[in-house]
């Protein structure tokens, strides 16, 4: 499926959810759908997106946190699936945009392209809900499912086309992004 169309659907229904994005194309996809104060974009720190989401979810238990990242970024954070399952937040959703490749570095095949199913790993770790979407129609169903209250962390894999779309770059200034995000939550910005 088309990655940007899928991300647009997820964000159109975010309803106040705080969004954390993994480096590379997921950050571009979320930015392309519309820059927002409650988007926290990573430009690096590979393997850190889901756990940044965990710390945020634990600090803001009344808000839903949605992490949107790629298969390569999530694979580097394999162990975090255990950490998040044990922490068991009820307000953390992880969306893996899975093109089965390392798209930023020359489209080398990733582990998911060799058969590793991240949603099954998450399920085995003890996530409350997991699944895989292969079409935009299935994403519509997912959006409705995500609107329901969760009993624990959720992870869904979206199988997307392997292609490099024109980059839509979020601001590079990491301190600005941090302060803008905290400002949105009414927190001090310095």
């Amino acid at each position, binding site marked *: 499926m088309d990655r940007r169309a899928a991300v647009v659907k997820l964000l159109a229904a975010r309803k106040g959810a705080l969004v954390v994005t993994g480096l590379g194309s997921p950050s571009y996809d979320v930015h392309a759908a519309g820059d927002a104060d409650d988007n926290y974009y990573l430009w*690096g*720190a590979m393997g*850190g997106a889901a756990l940044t989401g*965990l*710390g945020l979810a634990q600090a803001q238990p009344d808000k839903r946190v949605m992490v949107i990242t790629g298969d390569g970024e999530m694979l580097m954070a394999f162990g975090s699936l255990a950490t998040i399952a044990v922490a068991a937040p009820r307000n953390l959703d992880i969306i893996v945009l899975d093109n089965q490749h390392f798209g930023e570095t020359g489209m080398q095949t990733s582990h998911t392209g060799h058969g590793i199913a991240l949603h099954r790993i998450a399920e085995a770790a003890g996530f409350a809900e997991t699944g895989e979407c292969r079409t935009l129609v299935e994403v519509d169903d997912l959006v409705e499912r995500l609107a329901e209250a969760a009993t624990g962390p959720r992870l869904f894999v979206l199988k997307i086309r392997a292609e490099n779309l024109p980059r839509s770059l979020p601001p590079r200034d*990491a*301190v600005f992004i941090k302060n803008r995000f905290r400002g949105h939550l009414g927190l001090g910005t310095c």
Partner: protein
Amino acid sequence: MTVAETISSGDRPRDLTLDWPLELFDVLKAVGIRQMSYVPDAGHSTLIRLFNADPDIKTNVLTTEEEGVAIATGAWLGGQRSVVLMQSSGVGNCINMLSLPVQTRTPLLMLVTMRGEWAEFNPWQVPMGQATEASLKAIGVTVMRAETGEDLVKIVAQAAVMAFEADQQIAVLIGQRLLGKKKW
């Protein structure tokens, strides 16, 4: 009876050569720590028990130490202060993830128990133990070091000010000589 009461010094005044974890816990609570993440170390065991028993603190056991760096960054984004506990070998696992708080200028407080530097029986602990301070400095983390329980408590108290009120990334190294005085 709470964990703190079970392992408290009772009526006698605290002897910081032995009771520093109790004092450290009080200091960290007083500065408003709400999240604690850790890969266990024997030197941190009392502090871990105290945090895990506190209903006001969310604790996360980690599979590898860099996870704690990312959690701490997310916690601050959401308005909470946190602390990450690890031993010196874990610092090596953290290096690239430390670019997250360094680049975003997000407060970070790490407490690192040292191995490989004082009466170390395991030679495999020595390379990372000797590289710990240099590695942290190389990635841009400010390093402080305590050799006595009394110093440790003072250093952590002011490190918390620098981290959370001046947006610094700080690692406090807890010397193995200090830890060696405890029974493991």
